[in-house]
């Protein structure tokens, strides 16, 4: 489910790219500090975006400092400091990451090492202790989702709704922005649904070839990709429309340019790529 929240790189100002990377590096450092070095490799731009998004609701200026980095040791890199949104994003990463790990193990994915699993479980317990209600709500919604995925329910929207519930909690439970909780939940809800359906569409061809489960693939169904995509297009754009309606009601104090770029350009670009079959998985290219 990662790699879908991206910028339209060519439209970002250079200073905006610097800020975005500052959040990315800041998140990496926060994970290292709070959860240890091993789990830093699970870092993604998606979670960095969430940190930036939630932090944008606060007036305080971004405190970006130049720091050394273990991975990129040639030059010092800009790193964001002292930001509660980074701590929160790191916590959510551990909760979602562990749930994802459990899902892969349940699906019989032998490539998941139990070494990482051990670290993830420990990290999960730590994060869930700090966010008890969020953790159990996420667990509950995912269980409902997995149940629907094993039933013969043909509707993608029903399943997407459950993943929407997960992201609604993840976004809405950010305490420093409690005053805008309702809007954040609505935003997270539709973003989550969009992620779920985009991911399903992106995996459709490969899953069908390998006879793996895909929420868009109905039993005895061998519909060509284009046909599935044409049905999914309206749903994805509907979700995008709804999440922007929520976004419009948020009081964004900083970094709006970056967020606008991701929502209006990046998400649309990703949607069009996945619908036309040029998604990240098929090209093997990693996106930002």
């Amino acid at each position, binding site marked *: 489910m990662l790699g879908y929240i991206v910028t339209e790189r060519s439209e970002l100002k250079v200073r905006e790219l610097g800020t975005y990377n500052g959040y990315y590096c800041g998140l990496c450092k926060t994970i290292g500090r709070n959860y240890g070095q091993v789990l830093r490799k699970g870092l993604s731009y998606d979670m960095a975006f969430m940190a930036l998004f939630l932090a944008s609701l606060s007036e305080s200026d971004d405190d970006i400092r130049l720091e050394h980095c273990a991975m*990129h040791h040639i*030059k010092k890199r800009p790193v964001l400091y002292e930001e509660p949104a980074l701590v929160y994003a790191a916590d959510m990463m551990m909760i979602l990451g562990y749930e994802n790990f459990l899902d892969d193990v349940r699906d019989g994915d032998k490539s998941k090492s139990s070494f990482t699993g051990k670290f993830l479980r420990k990290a999960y317990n730590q994060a869930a202790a700090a966010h008890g209600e969020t953790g159990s709500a996420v667990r509950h919604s995912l269980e409902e989702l997995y149940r629907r995925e094993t039933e013969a329910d043909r509707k993608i*929207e029903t399943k997407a709704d459950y993943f929407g519930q997960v992201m609604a909690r993840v976004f809405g439970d950010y305490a420093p922005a409690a005053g805008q909780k309702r809007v954040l939940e609505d935003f997270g809800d539709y973003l989550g649904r969009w992620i779920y359906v985009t991911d399903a569409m992106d995996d459709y061809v490969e899953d069908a070839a390998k006879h793996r489960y895909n929420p868009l693939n109905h039993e005895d169904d061998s519909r060509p990709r284009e046909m599935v995509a044409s049905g999914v297009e309206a749903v994805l754009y509907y979700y995008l*429309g709804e999440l922007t309606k929520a976004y419009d*009601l948020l009081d964004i104090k900083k970094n709006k340019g970056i967020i606008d*770029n991701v929502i*209006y350009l990046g998400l649309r*670009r990703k949607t069009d790529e996945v619908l036309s079959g040029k998604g990240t998985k098929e090209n093997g290219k990693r996106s*930002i």
Partner: protein
Amino acid sequence: MVNDPYEILGVKHGASEAEIKSAYRELVKKYHPDKYQGNPLADLAEEKLQEVNEAYDMLTKGSAANYSGPAYGSAGGGYASQRDYGAKAKTYNAVRAALDRNDFYTAEQTLINEADHDAEWFFLSGVLSFKKGFIADGIANVKQALDMDPTNPEYQSIYQQMNNSGSIFRNSSNAQGYDQKGQSAADMLACSMMPLCCCTPC
């Protein structure tokens, strides 16, 4: 209201009347009640709209209270209408009444029992699906109805409304400079492929 009206409208102090008016219109479009009809956040949108109206009032000393701006499609009134279905009148009017009170079960059962799938059947099935949250089926069924009866204004209007959310998004995206032809040459640069490039400040 203690907040700065210029800030609320997003214009600089000393902005011209034309600039204020233009900013005001954009915000009315953004928080328009038609856009948020049926949306759980409608009350928040209304608050924002009120704030915007008050700010505009303060700056222009004119009466902005009656300006409602362009409506997004028709406000979604009820589905119960004076349709003459002939023999199927009772059935379809019953479905429409059920849809109006969100009685999905009755609507569904009535439609299931109707063997003849004409344009109206597809239309009402589509409306039911959409209301239940099944976007894909909803739009597909209403489209089918429209294919069977292309000049029907109600089908056209509802189809447009269902696609509205996506259309609004596309328009905003285009306004932000989305280029449908694909990404520019800049994205082919090596630094676009790597997460953190090696070049100086970034």
